[in-house]
């Protein structure tokens, strides 16, 4: 187990280094170099000064090592747009994305797992066909379109919910007000991951229900509900834990669109704005933080999996 832990953390670190190399490599490939982008009206001497200030006259590998040295101490550079450290802007935005993503994940677990179980119990039935069919439909709906339709229905036509933002400007911040603003973005983001949870729960539950010990439990004369919830559910849910790790990239990626549709002040919207303005340190910072989140959650999920499932031997 210790050996597994060490190896797993090791691969995590290698993956993380590769993420930073890919991002840094892409940034360095910018035509004309980042110095031009800071301001188009700079003179040649100003540009030379900027180049020296940002260390852009060094070769790419040297700059990468320098950048990495800063990055491990939590310094991801200064945003061109905000003239503030990237980490402090990210620090303000991250909790908002976390709130949105976590609400969406919680919703999709609460809705998705029962649906998956229901479909697995009656495989081949009309209910199963409906649930699996709807999950493909859910996977195919563009989230920006669904968001727009929600705005048309709930904000424009019915006037139940605010169109966008996180709180009403000028009004005191209350939990109710925040919830009103959270309702539409969280539901749209939830629908982006819900189909995966439904499908995975269904296939995992279906596999377990076919196992001998379930037949034994039925043969003993136990009530079907008891077999399902006490015997099957525990084993069926263990693999589902690992999908939740796989859904984190989808949630973060989805937040880019959903936050833009609903003007939610999170990391995703920050990334779009930074990409539009070519705020290189910011685009890079957001991407690397997203990579760190994905790699760390996958690590936690894998370790959790090892703890939850004692059948698996780790050499």
């Amino acid at each position, binding site marked *: 187990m210790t050996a597994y832990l060490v190896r797993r953390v090791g691969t995590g670190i290698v993956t*993380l280094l590769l993420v930073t190399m890919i991002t840094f490599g892409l940034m360095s490939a*910018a035509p004309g170099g980042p110095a031009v982008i800071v301001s188009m009206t700079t003179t040649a001497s100003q540009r030379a000064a900027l180049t020296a200030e940002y260390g852009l006259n060094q070769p790419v590998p040297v700059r990468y090592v320098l950048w990495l040295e800063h990055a491990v101490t939590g310094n991801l550079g200064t945003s061109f747009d905000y003239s503030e450290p990237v980490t402090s802007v990210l620090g303000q935005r991250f909790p908002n994305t976390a709130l949105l993503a976590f609400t969406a994940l919680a919703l999709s677990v609460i809705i998705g797992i029962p649906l998956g179980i229901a479909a697995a119990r009656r495989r081949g039935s009309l209910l199963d066909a409906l649930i699996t069919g709807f999950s493909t439909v859910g996977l195919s709906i563009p989230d*920006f*379109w669904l968001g727009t339709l929600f705005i048309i229905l709930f904000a*424009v036509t019915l006037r139940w919910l605010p169109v966008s933002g996180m709180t009403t400007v000028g009004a005191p911040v209350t939990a109710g007000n925040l919830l009103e603003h959270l309702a539409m973005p969280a539901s749209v983001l939830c629908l982006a991951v819900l189909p995966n949870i439904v499908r995975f729960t269904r296939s995992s539950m279906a596999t377990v229900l076919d196992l001998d010990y379930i037949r034994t439990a039925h043969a003993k004369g136990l009530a079907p509900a008891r077999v399902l919830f006490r015997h099957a559910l525990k084993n069926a849910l263990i693999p589902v834990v690992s999908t939740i790790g796989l859904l984190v990239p989808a949630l973060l990626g*989805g937040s*880019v669109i959903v936050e833009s549709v609903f003007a939610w002040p999170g990391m995703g919207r920050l990334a779009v704005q930074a990409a539009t303005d070519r705020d290189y340190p910011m685009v890079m910072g957001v991407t690397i933080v997203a990579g760190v989140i994905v790699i760390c959650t996958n690590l936690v999920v894998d370790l959790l999996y090892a703890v939850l499932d004692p059948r698996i031997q780790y050499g």
Partner: protein
Amino acid sequence: MARVMTDPAGMAAVEVEPSRPGLGRMVRRYPLAAAAAVLLILLHVLVFGLPLVYHASPTLANPLATLAPPSAGHLLGTDELGRDELARLIYGGRVSLLVGLFAMAVSVVVGTLAGAVSGFFRGATELVVMRIVDAVMAIPAFFLILVEVSVFGNAPAIIILVVGLTYWPAVARIVHAEVLKWRQRDFVEAGHALGAGPSRLLFRHVLPQATPSILSVAILSVGWSILTESGLSYLGLGIQPPLASWGAMLQNAQTYIFADPALAVFPGLLIFLTILSYNFLGNGIADSMSHRG
């Protein structure tokens, strides 16, 4: 002579897949996938063929007839500049569908090569390629694309490359798993014993076994690419006007959401139907494979 020599290996490969069910049986067994295939053909015919009979211009603005309701001259009405909405949907569809197909080609070629070579030769190649696959998959797709678009701009060719190069790791993983599964089989060893070199073994013996998996993931990747491109266009970072894809039309429509909600409904509906069809078709092919040995 060489042909005869490799024949036993070829026969063994045929043995794995004994019968090919006819079209009629496939349609009955996978009705949704069949319906999706029909809808896709219809969509492509409409998008590429309708301008032959419907002559309205997608770019001709008419300031006297902005946001007009459907009429005989404009079957789906006009947009905020008085341009014909149906014509814009058709030409926008060309952009969306073509980007999807080209991006799929990029991801399938790169992913298949990476997955096949790493699965077949294993060792250091496998270690390096699979770590890169992990790293690319760890970056949420949209963030990676935003980095690339901010650096390289949004010319159509770049959008295609960027979208395609985001999906290749998923293709590589699937092909890698397939190659690992097939490379140990007897018919590969037979080919090897008959003197076939590694590239012949990989591309003529092992990889053809993975064709159905590659086909299924290729079809799913068309849908994914169209979705991603339209998302990017919706954010204003995709292919730029006057080449408006469905996503860009949707972004435009959001400004006029109070005045004319219909403008936001049509492009989204077409994106949705296209992706839904690609997903049902791709899943149908994946299902039909799971019954195979």
